């Protein structure tokens, strides 16, 4: 991601006259990457839409205090990740679903989702990913699909690079075993 562009956007945002314009540019620039990250976590489009909107509203409120110690994208990604985890926890509490059953429910949703067009092997891959624990699923998605660097992931998830590498390695093994089994 172009860091200079981020710096320009933040500078525009700091000026009250161009704040709305700058925020609109930020949304347009990052909405897709944030959306796909969220969608892979919550699976359903409507849920993803809610989470993405909440993410950007939180960003709007938090941007005046953004200290630019991290990249804008990493910062947005962190908000989106927290929003995903909050959403999944709420889902568990509202429907009294045990921890492992949320992923099972998401897996069932995937099959009937009108906005999912993966082939058989891709569907199987998604189901395999959904068998992973929440945090491991995050790590896998960030590395495999978003191709993030471990250093960036460490920033988002507040975890060490070593732990993330181990987590990704275990996740890959589990998925490959799942795909091989059936």
């Amino acid at each position, binding site marked *: 991601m172009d860091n200079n562009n981020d710096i320009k956007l933040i500078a525009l945002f700091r000026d009250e006259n161009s704040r*709305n314009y700058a*925020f*609109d540019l930020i*949304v*347009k620039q990052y*909405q*897709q990457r944030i*959306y*796909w990250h969220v*969608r*892979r976590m919550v699976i359903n*489009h409507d849920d993803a*839409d809610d989470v*993405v*909107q909440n993410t*950007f*509203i939180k960003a*709007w*409120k938090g941007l005046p205090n953004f200290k630019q110690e991290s990249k804008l994208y990493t910062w947005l990604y962190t908000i989106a990740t927290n929003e995903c985890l909050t959403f999944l926890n709420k889902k568990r509490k509202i429907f009294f679903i045990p921890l492992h059953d949320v992923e099972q429910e998401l897996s069932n949703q995937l099959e009937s989702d009108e*906005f*999912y*067009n*993966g*082939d058989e*092997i*891709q*569907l199987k*891959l*998604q189901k395999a990913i959904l068998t992973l624990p929440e945090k491991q699923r995050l790590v896998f998605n960030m590395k*495999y*699909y978003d191709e993030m660097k471990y250093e960036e992931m460490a920033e988002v998830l507040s975890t060490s690079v070593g732990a993330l590498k181990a987590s990704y390695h275990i996740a*890959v093994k589990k*998925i*490959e075993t799942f*795909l*091989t089994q059936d």
Partner: protein
Amino acid sequence: MENKYNIEDLKKENQFAVPTSYFEELPLRINQRKTNTNNRTLFSAKLWYKFLAPTFVVIVLFVGYFMYQNNENDAVLTNQQLSKNIINHELVEFDEELIYEVYTETANTPNANATQDEEIIDYLINDNININQITEEL
């Protein structure tokens, strides 16, 4: 033979889809929610300055005044001040009407002894008992 999968060999394509024009409309919807959030915050601030803050000030003043009054009443008086106040009727006020009522009620209450005497006389008259005879016997 068992199929051995390597996920790096799988195609990394996005299998999820979105409704038509979703990404064109999303910034507009976020902007709308952002404006609503701003208005709500502004409304809360206005509400505070227009209504809640003055009400709060009035309550604080009222409570302050009430507590000040209570403190004055509870002030400790020296014995000399207390005596002076009682003498000057500053602390003890009598309700003169009430005193008059109590006095007249007491005055009108029939004397128990008088009633007893009258009953004895009536008894003696009714039974034709001679008072002189009784006096002689005594």
